[in-house]
């Protein structure tokens, strides 16, 4: 059976981690926002802009890590716009989020066209190279599958640990979660719901942008239009699938990436040749909808998600 051959190859599992990385980063970003009470539909556009900004910074001569920082900062900037409109002004998070997606996407495309007016094929950068972790990467099978990824993949996994630690083991995390559950209680503690939510949206948006930057700086080496291709929306589904828990969301992202990596490989099998390739490409989106349906009964939504907080109003 081809399926077993695929599942038993180290390159398959390496691909799973690679495909999961941008999803993990952006999902953590969205999770932070939603835990603080703000649905961030700007995610798709912010990922596009992050993909462009990080890549452009490197193309313009910055190093790879400064490029990642540029992407993060650009994402945080769009986050600031989103947060200003949705938190203190309490505008519809749906409308503002979609507006941010349109704004960030078109800004990236505009800037790309301005910076590179006459290119036929997109220029390349030297992306992050696989980093073989000493000793671990020499383990047969597991080594090449798990321990010779690029630095950004390791960063993605680290981000899950950091988000989980901060959310559940620090006073800041407690305050953030409370801002998403019961904002008046946060205010009663003398903390500012506005500041907490705005901060969460900015940091979260920064992470989304780094997730986008993974595509241009690690998975590929150049920027294409429509390269994010709905990944942001999938991340929103992953947050729901993960029931707003970082660990479960990570699991969801890995599961999702495994299916995605599998469908890519199935396309090349004799069986796959009989099925139109579009069917395979639909799989990720269909899976995301299925995940939402499966979790719909069980998920515990943050109580104040999408509820604007206006101080002094009850």
């Amino acid at each position, binding site marked *: 059976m081809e399926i077993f051959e695929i599942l038993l190859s180290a390159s398959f599992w390496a691909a799973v981690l690679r495909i999961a990385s941008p999803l993990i980063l952006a999902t953590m970003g969205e999770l932070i926002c939603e835990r603080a009470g703000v649905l961030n*539909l700007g995610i798709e556009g912010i990922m596009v802009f992050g993909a462009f900004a990080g890549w452009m910074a490197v193309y313009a001569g910055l190093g790879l890590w400064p490029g990642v920082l540029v992407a993060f900062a650009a994402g945080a900037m769009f986050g600031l*716009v989103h947060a200003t*409109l949705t938190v*203190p*002004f*309490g*505008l*519809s998070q*749906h*409308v*503002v989020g*979609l*507006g*941010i997606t*349109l*704004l960030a*996407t*078109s*800004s990236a*495309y*505009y800037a790309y*066209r*301005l910076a590179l*007016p006459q290119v036929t094929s997109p220029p390349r950068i030297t992306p992050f190279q696989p980093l073989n972790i000493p000793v671990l990467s020499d383990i047969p099978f597991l080594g090449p599958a798990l321990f010779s990824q690029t630095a950004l993949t390791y960063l993605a996994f680290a981000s899950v640990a950091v988000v989980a630690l901060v959310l559940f083991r620090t006073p800041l995390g407690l305050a953030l979660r409370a801002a998403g559950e019961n904002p008046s209680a946060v205010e009663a503690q003398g903390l500012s719901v506005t500041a907490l939510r705005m901060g969460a949206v900015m940091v979260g948006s920064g992470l989304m942008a780094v997730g986008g930057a993974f595509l241009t700086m690690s998975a590929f080496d150049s920027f294409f239009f429509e390269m994010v*291709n*709905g990944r942001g*929306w*999938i991340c*929103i*589904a992953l947050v*729901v699938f993960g029931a707003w828990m970082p660990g479960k969301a990570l699991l969801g992202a890995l599961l999702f990436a495994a299916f995605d990596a599998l469908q890519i490989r199935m396309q090349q099998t004799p069986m796959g040749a009989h099925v*139109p390739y*579009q*069917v395979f*490409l*639909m799989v990720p*989106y*269909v899976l*995301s*909808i299925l995940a*939402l*349906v499966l979790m*719909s*009964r069980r998920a515990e939504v943050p109580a104040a998600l999408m509820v604007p907080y*206006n*101080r*002094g109003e009850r």
Partner: protein
Amino acid sequence: MRLEPVADPGLVRLIGLPALALAGMVGVASVLAMLAGANPFAVLGLIVQGAAGSKFAALETLNRATPLIFTGLAVAVAFRAKLWNIGAEAQLYAGALMTVLIGTQLGLPGTLALPLMAGAAILTGGLVLLGPVLLKVRLGVDEVVTTLLFNFIMLLFVSMLLEGPLKDPMGMGWPKSEALPRDARLPRIVDGLRLHWGFGLALISAVLVWVIQVRTTLGYEIRAVGQNPQAARFAGIPVGRVMVKTALLSGGLAAMAGFSEVAGLKGSLTLDLSPGFGYTGIVVAMLALLHPLGVVVSAIFVAGVFVGANSMSRAAEVPTYIADISVATALLFMVLAILLTRFRVVRG
């Protein structure tokens, strides 16, 4: 800062703030033009000229506005009921697909084919939205994400058909459907002028939606559900059923955009039929404050920005995406301006 309701907003506030929002959009566009090294006044002039400077330009704008009126209405109807239909793009393609299927496969005479094409398109568009809405009503699955994801699924489905059973054998290998026969196309409103009846249908639809909203029980129920579903349910309004009806109406309207683009303008179905009309419909609806007649005005305005920017970028070295950015900023400025007509910002 805190928001305080304004008891009696004066006319200056009600008109001045939205005007300021549009001025803000022009400001952003000017900065973008300067970033591109162009003279902002020249660029703005070229945009206006390209959108409305000649009969040809104005008709082009109205043609471009046609699908936007339909998708704008689709979004306006849905958002009124707080049904977040972000899937107008998928419903548009569903409508286009049915139009092409009936128009090219059945071999009916035009007088029979056109109404059948439109009817089938409306029905299919409604059904495409019905799925996510039933998931929302029955299982509480958020429709924002499901309708968004459906856009991608639908586009792949259309691509599959265009490369398979629906592929035009004379298409030189391009993924393109066969062309509709001459008599199965929407005629022009005035002979010799490049404006098809899709625009007329869009205007009629806007009036119909307006009548539904202000004169029928359904319109009342949609508003009630949108304002407060709990209260609506308590008042005996069948919330689930109203949602389903809203979905059929909204999806049908979006599908009409696909019908009118294929039968009125393009004549066949390709994968680039819609450059995001479904998403732009959200902007159109919001700029119109979800008012069906306002949708017509805002669709023409937004279409003008796109058509004008397109023609401008051929003359000046400014990328067309200036239109997309302008429209997105107009949306954000406008929702803020509308809020500030009702609330004032106070310190502390």
